[in-house]
């Protein structure tokens, strides 16, 4: 009876030994999370088919005018400007609707967020249009390979 009521003695050395791997694991997880931490808002969350290309680049993206090239349309600041199919099929190098809209907006910096599966011909036309509209600093937005 006395043996049953006796308070068990904690084996402190065993407890510390069991805790050490858990602390190691949490530290590794913490370093991984800090390295891949990002507060970037998802690009075109409503469009499930839209996927940005992957890149080894780590350069952060600044908030500027955004041209989105998707399978459904060409968007400027999330406003639909033109259809994609027309400019994929035509030889027109200048996207006139985009050119007119870009000329109305100040600044010379623009970012292009193009779907990874779209042909480069459309991106080339968008870049050419931006250049013609006086947007000299163009950034292509990609998803970093260090993403989660």
């Amino acid at each position: 009876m006395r043996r049953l009521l006796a308070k068990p003695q904690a084996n402190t050395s065993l407890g510390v030994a069991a805790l050490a791997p858990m602390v190691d694991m949490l530290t590794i997880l913490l370093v991984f999370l800090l390295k891949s931490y990002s507060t970037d808002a998802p690009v075109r969350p409503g469009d499930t088919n839209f996927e940005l290309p992957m890149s080894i680049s780590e350069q952060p993206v600044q908030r500027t005018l955004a041209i989105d090239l998707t399978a459904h349309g060409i968007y400027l600041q999330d406003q639909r400007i033109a259809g994609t199919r027309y400019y994929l099929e035509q030889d027109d190098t200048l996207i006139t609707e985009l050119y007119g809209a870009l000329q109305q907006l100040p600044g010379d910096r623009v970012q292009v967020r193009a779907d990874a599966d779209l042909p480069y011909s459309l991106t080339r036309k968008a870049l050419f249009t931006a250049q013609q509209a006086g947007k000299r600093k163009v950034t292509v937005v990609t998803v970093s390979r260090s993403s989660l």
Partner: protein
Amino acid sequence: MLLLMPFLLLTTSVQKLAGIDLLLAGNNSELPPEPPGIVERLTVVVHPDTALEITAQVRRSDVGAKTGETEARAERIEAGAEGLDLAALQSALRRYKGLDPEREQATLLPADSLSNGQVVNLMDAMRRDAEGELFPKVALGVEPPAPSDAEGEQP
């Protein structure tokens, strides 16, 4: 640490965006000048699924050469069964980097039929390899391709 972990897990985004700043070649606009080096012009032309073509203007340095005289060099890398040979491209670009370590700029002329994902892969391959930085400033050709450039076919 136990407080920080849930905070990070709750606030982090699964997509980390990264930008690639472009130099746009074409429209009669001059690209930013490069420091004078032995390689004066370096261009990679992509023929989809068939080959990569590297053309360069390299300044002649032999005794008989006149001042500023250059020679054109061209190299064609045929695509393998798995597509375009990016490792061979990087190896060739590494040789040009060895000739002119100060040079940072190269021009990429992708075929229209390539996807944006493939173009970004090519740009990544031109910007750095396993040994380090190659040509971090990639200029993209945005002018419409000349008819003779299409798929390497001759009329």
